[in-house]
C-alpha cells in the first residue's frame, strides 16, 4: 500500500505528494477556487449596484441647503416623502395605469404568440418579424414619433379630423394622455413579449397536442387548456418584469411633456418627479429618498403579484 495511513494525511495522491505532510498553500488554493470564479461577478455587482445603492442611501440621510451647507437629517427626507402628495399622486397614477396596460399588453402578446404557434396563419415568420420590429426602435424615438402623430396642430389624425369636419382627437389632453402613453408602451413591447411566449410555446412536446386532438380537442381548447398553463412560468416572469418596468415609466412622459407641459407636470410619474427634482430643483438628497420610496413601492407590488401567482399555482 502506497498511501500513507497516518492520521490527518490526505489519501489523494495528487494532493499529498509529500508523504503525510499537508500543504496549506495547496489546500488554500483548492478551497479558494469558488471565490476566484465568483470574484468578477462580485466586483461588478459591488461597484455597479451595492456601492451606488449605499451611497444613495447615505445621500438620503442628509440635506444640502443653499444656506448652511450639508446637514444630517436622518429620516427627515423619508418623513417628507410620506407627506409628499406629488409623489403619491404619481404612484397612484402609475399603479392604475399598470393595472390596465400590463394585462392588456401581455394578453395581446399571448394572443399573437398563440396565433403564430397555431400553424393556421400563413407567412407566420413575416408576422413574427412585423410584431417584433417596434421593439427595435429606441424608446425616445418611439415617443417622438407618436408625439408627432398625436400632435394637435400638425399630427395626421388632427389634420384628417379637420379635413373631414370631425371633432379633434384629444390624444394629449388630460383624459387622453394615459391611454396615449399606454398605446406607445404596448406598441413598443408587445412584440418582444410575444417572442418570449412563442419561444416558451416551442418547448411544449408535440405529442401532447396529438393526444389532445385524439381526445377531440379543437385548436381553441388546446390553446386554453394545454398551451397557456404550460407557459405559465414565462407569463409570470414577463408579468414581474412588466410591473417593474411600468412602475418606473419615464421616457414617454418626459418626451410628451414638451408637447403638452400643462398636462404632464413635474410629478406625472414618480421617476419623472425624481428627475425633475434633480434637474431643476437640485435636491439630490431628496431624490435619493424618492428613489428608495419608489423602489419600496415596486417591491410591494411585485411581492403581491408573486403571491397571487403562487396562490393560483397552488389551486
Amino acid at each position: 500500500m502506497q498511501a500513507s495511513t497516518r492520521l490527518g494525511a490526505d489519501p489523494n495522491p495528487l494532493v499529498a505528494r509529500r508523504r503525510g505532510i499537508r500543504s496549506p498553500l495547496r489546500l488554500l488554493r483548492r478551497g479558494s477556487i469558488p471565490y476566484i470564479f465568483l470574484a468578477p461577478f462580485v466586483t461588478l455587482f459591488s461597484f455597479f449596484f451595492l456601492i451606488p445603492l449605499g451611497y444613495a442611501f447615505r445621500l438620503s440621510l442628509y440635506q444640502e441647503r443653499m444656506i448652511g451647507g450639508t446637514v444630517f437629517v436622518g429620516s427627515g427626507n423619508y418623513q417628507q416623502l410620506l407627506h409628499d402628495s406629488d409623489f403619491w399622486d404619481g404612484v397612484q397614477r402609475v399603479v392604475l395605469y399598470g393595472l390596465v396596460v400590463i394585462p392588456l399588453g401581455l394578453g395581446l402578446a399571448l394572443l399573437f404568440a398563440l396565433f403564430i404557434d397555431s400553424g393556421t396563419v400563413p407567412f407566420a415568420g413575416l408576422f413574427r418579424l412585423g410584431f417584433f420590429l417596434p421593439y427595435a426602435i429606441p424608446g425616445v424615438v418611439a415617443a417622438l414619433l407618436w408625439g408627432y402623430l398625436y400632435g394637435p396642430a400638425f399630427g395626421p389624425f388632427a389634420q384628417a379630423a379637420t379635413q373631414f369636419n370631425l371633432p379633434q382627437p384629444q390624444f394629449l389632453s388630460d383624459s387622453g394622455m394615459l391611454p396615449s402613453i399606454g398605446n406607445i408602451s404596448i406598441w413598443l413591447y408587445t412584440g418582444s413579449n410575444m417572442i418570449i411566449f412563442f419561444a416558451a410555446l416551442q418547448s411544449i412536446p408535440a405529442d401532447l397536442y396529438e393526444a389532445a386532438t385524439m381526445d377531440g380537442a379543437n385548436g381553441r381548447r388546446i390553446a386554453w387548456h394545454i398551451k397557456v398553463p404550460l407557459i405559465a412560468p414565462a407569463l409570470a416572469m414577463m408579468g414581474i418584469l412588466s410591473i417593474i418596468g411600468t412602475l418606473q415609466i419615464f421616457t414617454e412622459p418626459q418626451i410628451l411633456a414638451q408637447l403638452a407641459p400643462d398636462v404632464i407636470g413635474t410629478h406625472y410619474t414618480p421617476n419623472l418627479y425624481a428627475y425633475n427634482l434633480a434637474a431643476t430643483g437640485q435636491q439630490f438628497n431628496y431624490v435619493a429618498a424618492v428613489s428608495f420610496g419608489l423602489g419600496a413601492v415596486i417591491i410591494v407590488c411585485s411581492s403581491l403579484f408573486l403571491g397571487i401567482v403562487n396562490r393560483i399555482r397552488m389551486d
Partner: protein
Amino acid sequence: MSVMARFYRTTRTTGVAGVVAAAVMLAPSGAMHGNAVPSKAPVTITMWGWSPHTEDLTKLFEQTHPGIKVNYVNTGGGTGKEYTKLQVALKAGKGLPEAVMLEHYVLPQFAASGSLVDLSQYGAKSIAKDFVPAVWSQMIQGSKIYGTPLDYAPMAFAYRKDLFDQYHLKVPTTWAEYAQTAAALHKADPKMVLGNSPLDEGNFLGMLWQAKDQAFHVNGTTVSINVADGTAQKVLSFWANLVQQHLVSTFPAFTPSWNSSFNSVASWITPSWGLVFPQPAAAKSSGKWRLAPLPTWTKGVPSSAMWGGSAYSVMAKSAHPKEAAEYVIWMNDSPKAAALQQKLSGAFPVLKSFSTPKVLGTPSPFFGGQAINELYYKAAASVDPHWQWNPFMIYTNQEVQADVIAAEKGKTGVSAALSKLQNDLVSYAKNQGFTVK
C-alpha cells in the same frame, strides 16, 4: 524613493526653473522698449451664453482689448434647462466659465449661493446711471451689483387692428374691459379668442408684478413669500374665469401648437423681444398688428412689468475676475458695442443713451409701421422697480406652473391652489436654510 517620484521631482524643478528663466528674460525686454504692447500672454476667459450676435460683439471686444481673449460657448437657451449645466459645474467645482449669461430672475439664486462676483469692486457702480431704474434694480441687491444688463423686456399689448375694426372692438385699457372685449369677440367669431393665457406661457408672476403685488422680498438670507394674498387671488381668478369660459386659449409657450396659435388670437401680451415668435408664425397677418399699453387694474394708472431679460455676470470662482468684469461691463455698457448690436439686430436698446427718438422711432413693418420701441420705452417707465425675485426661482417657476395651471383649468380652487403654492415655497425655503418672514 521610487523611480517615478524621482522623475516627477526633477521635471517639476526643471519646469519651475524654466518658467523663472523665461520671466527673467521677458520682463526686461518689455521695460527696455517701454511700449504699450503687453509683454505677458493674453488672458483667456470663457463665456457661456446664448444671445444672438454675441460672437460679433465678442470679436469687437477682442479687437479693442488686445490682452484678453474670449472663448464664447453658445449653451443654447429657451429650453428651460439652460442652467442645469451651470448648476452641475458649480456642484463639481470645475468646468466653470468666467462670465455667464443669466436671466434676471435667476440672478438672486446664483447670488445667494455665493456664485457671483460683486461687480461694484470693478467699477460697475459708475454705469448705473446708463440704465433705466426698472432694469438696474434687477441687477442689484442692496449695494452689491451682480450683473450688467444685456436687455430688458417691458410688456405691452399687441392686437390685430383689422379684427378689432371688423368687430367694432375697443382697445381695452383695463382688465375689466379686456374681459368684455374677449366676450364680445368670441360671440362675434367663435373660432377666434382674444388671446392666449399668460399663465400658460409661464407669466403668472409677471402678471402679479404688473398688479404691483410684492410676491417676494429678499434680504440676504431672509426671504418673505406672499403669493396667496388678495391680489394674487384676483389675478388668478381673472384668468381662470376667462379660460373656463373659453374666451382665451391655453397653449403653453414655445410649443408647436403655441406657434401656430398666433393665427387664431386677436391679441397677445407681449414683451419687447416678442416679435421673434409671432413674426414667422403669423406672417400672414403681418402689418395688421398694433401695440398699445397693457390693460391695468386701475383705470388711468399705467403699469407694466417685465418678462425675461438677461444679464452678464462673473462667476466667483473665476481665475480672471478683473478681465471677466471688464468684458461683461464693456459688452453691455460700451457705446461701440451698443451701436454694433443696434446695427445687427435692431432690438430694443438697453442703454438710456441709445433710447433716442431716432432709434426708438424705427417703424416696425409687422406692426404696420408703428414705432413700437417708443411704446416699450414708455412702458418701462411704469414698471415697478421694487419687484424682487426669490433666490430659488428655478424651483419656484416649476411649482407656480403646476399649481396655477391646475386652478386655471378648474381642477382645483383658486385659493386652494395658491395656498398649496405658498406652503410649498415656504417649506422649500426653510429646507434650504433661509429664514422665512
